């Protein structure tokens, strides 16, 4: 699957079919720190991402002076 990381603007390939929760753990991402987006839908931990899918992992953490 193609995984785009935003806002870093990086893309990586991950082989095989994965549950969302497993994918986040394998990438070292903490729960609640990214939105998992496939097309116009949001995915939850138990959704399955197919090898042919393209997803975006969009960070939700903002920092600095608010």
């Amino acid at each position, binding site marked *: 699957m193609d995984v785009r990381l*935003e*806002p870093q603007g990086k893309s990586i390939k991950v082989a095989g079919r994965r549950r969302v929760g497993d994918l986040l753990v394998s990438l070292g991402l*903490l*729960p*609640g*720190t990214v*939105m998992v*987006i496939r097309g116009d*839908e*949001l*995915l*939850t*931990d*138990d*959704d399955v991402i197919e090898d042919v899918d393209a997803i975006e992992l*969009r960070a*939700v*953490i*903002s*920092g*600095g*002076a*608010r």
Partner: protein
Amino acid sequence: MKCRRCTAKAVVQLRSHNAAFCRECFVFVFQRTVERSIDHERMFTRDERILVAVSGGKDSLALWDTLAALGYATEGLYLGLGIGRYSSASQRKAEGYAAKAGLRLHVVQLADESDAVGVPEAAAFTHRQPCAACGTMKRHHFDRAALAGGFPVLATGHNLDDEAARLLGNVLHWQLPYLAKQQPVLAPSHAKFVRKVRPLYRTSEYESATYAFLRGIDYVVEECPNSHGATQLIYKDLMNRLEAAMPGTKHSFVTEFLRRAHPLFAAAPEGSLGECERCGMPASSALCGYCRLIAEIERRRGEAVAHS
């Protein structure tokens, strides 16, 4: 995973609430949570005009969208900080949302103000952290704009993660005056200040991001280039690790502080405010924090010219 309210397929999972929601139910729950925060803290009423500080990011646009959906009388304020392409992109997002929603947005550019100092210049001249200079400048211009526009209330998009990180920083350094002021409603301590409120203080960053996404709000995803290495991000990372191990930690840290500990810090007497000799805004000394910053920049500019 099923929606807790309607059992449709869930798209948002909230570990801290041990719950998940579909699109429609999440939007409803988010707006209801914000409305309950407003009512619980008596932030404002539907008779009051509210100025919403809008950065073009997910939190402030989610806040503005929610307040408008709940029927509050809002206008937005965008402050152009002069941070290159990031500021341009942020302004486009704020203006785009306002136009789409049919809401009024006021735009103030720091470069057009009499001091004509942007955040990068302020940080460079004073050797301060950009975020510290930015915070001082934002507070000053928010106060002035709210006062000039006759708004009794200024609302900002600070969320639960912001509040938890700020609380952690204040506790680690035992910043007693800051702990006394850390609350979702700050009553004006001077006639030239307006009430400042944080209606998102009980909703997380993940919730405002998912709300913005599900509402089709086009927000700036890019992070401020000055925020790399910001102390607040270190505190947020620590809180996120605690939250992963113990869901609900951020919420209880902030809400239990407000319920049980804040009254103890708030009991300390506070000095009265005078007015700044330079700009006339409230100040605890001869100059307000903003004018001290500007005076320092002017002094260092003069030194730079003298040495060139």
